[in-house]
């Protein structure tokens, strides 16, 4: 049984359907992850000198609470395997919901669980990327902004943000690629993404070499698209 090119051609439509799903989970996942990451990342340094004047009174207590909350989120997500998070969300979470009074019917779509898992998981790592980039902005620039009399929002929007974003791009590229590859783990909750499609075809024709090679090449193509998109952004913005 030699290498059969025709096997690849036959399996390609199914694999591409899987790839489309992988792409969907990744794009929605990292978009949501960016939102969560920016909030949790800024949350972890709320009220610190990195974001301007230290708050007083109630604002001070609020930012302390935000810091603890964000840190708790980041640590608990970074500290547990993504596969456990997916299983928890898909199997355990609906069970918890059904325990509530007046709820008997609740199910979660596998695809929904997959997307949310990537959002939350990537969000925790992106939070650290955001925090790292913001903390790396020279304190003198924050002071220069403050000394002109701008608000905290303007300081973040026009001074800290533009400088930090440029520094976030390389580590974000890393995270996006990791998240894309992490979608292959959703095979365990039955999402028909690329790896699962490959697994199913393989189980029917036992053509491991052709199938896994094709699957690997498709992943490589997708990560290349992600990486070159980010490199394009990186070139457009000068890195300081």
């Amino acid at each position, binding site marked *: 049984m030699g290498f059969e090119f025709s096997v690849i051609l036959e399996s390609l439509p199914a694999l591409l359907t899987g790839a489309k799903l992988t792409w969907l989970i990744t794009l929605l996942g990292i978009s949501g992850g960016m939102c969560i990451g920016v909030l949790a990342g800024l949350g972890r340094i709320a009220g610190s000198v990195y974001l301007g004047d230290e708050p007083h009174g109630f604002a001070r207590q609020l930012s302390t609470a935000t810091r603890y909350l964000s840190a708790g989120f980041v640590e608990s997500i970074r500290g547990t395997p993504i596969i456990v998070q997916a299983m928890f969300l898909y199997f355990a979470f609906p069970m918890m919901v059904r325990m509530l009074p007046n709820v008997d019917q609740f199910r979660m779509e596998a695809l929904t669980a997959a997307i949310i898992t990537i959002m939350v998981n990537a969000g925790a790592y992106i939070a650290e990327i955001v925090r790292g980039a913001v903390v790396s902005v020279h304190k*003198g620039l924050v*002071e*220069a902004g403050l*000394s*002109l009399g701008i608000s905290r929002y303007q300081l973040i929007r026009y001074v800290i943000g533009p*400088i930090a974003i*440029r520094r976030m791009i390389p580590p974000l590229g890393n995270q996006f690629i990791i998240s894309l590859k992490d979608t292959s783990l959703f095979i365990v909750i039955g999402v028909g993404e690329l790896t699962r499609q490959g697994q199913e075809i393989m189980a029917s024709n036992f053509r491991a070499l052709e199938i896994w090679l094709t699957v690997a090449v498709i992943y490589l193509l997708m990560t290349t698209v992600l990486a070159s998109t980010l490199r394009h952004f990186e070139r457009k913005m000068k890195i300081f």
Partner: protein
Amino acid sequence: MTNIVEMKNVCKSYGDTEVLHNIDFSVAEGEVVVIIGPSGSGKSTLIRCINCLEMITSGELIVDGIMIPAERKRVRQVRLEVGMVFQQFNLFPHLSALDNVAFGPIRARNIKKPEAYRIAEELLGKVGLEEFKEKLPGELSGGQQQRVAIARALAVNPKVMLFDEPTSALDPEMIGEVLDVMKSIAKDSGMTMVVVTHEMGFASQVGDRLIFMDDGRIVEEGKPSEVMKNPESERLTDFLGHVKHH
């Protein structure tokens, strides 16, 4: 003349360490005050307290009628009236020289962009850098960056300018160009200025009053030429022996 800055019995501590002890200090409108002193004497902290980059621990600070800490919610108002120039320039690295200068008018003063850019170009001309307006800070020399930084602070149209060792990070040949700009601001526009520096030549030529600080206290003050000629304390005599004369 009215006092635009007034400090009454001001103390500043970091944790258990008090770095400013019971400072009484005021700046009159149009006055140029030069502060000298050894490193760690609290001179930078003192001027950073004026625009609330450091919040005073006790005592009272009045800037243009705003009382700190009582009216600490109006800190932004204080900063609009107090411009600052830093030792390390601190220009926004992602903005051109012109955008750096126009930043304050647009963001802090809500001035429309065409008008803000007109102000910015005029100020860049004043500091002699009109032809460098499209350059990023990284493409300018230290002296040029500091002149842009001075223009940026002036663009918000403050009533007082603070200079925190503006020439200490510069190569010797660039110090003159920055001092010249500062002199012209003091002389031509009668700007109120508080300058922390070791440039004794600048102090005697432009300064109305010289303050010597040591160990978080104002040790001596008076007319620059007199204080320099007849220092009362041993600390100042010693200090003056160490600073270069330009």
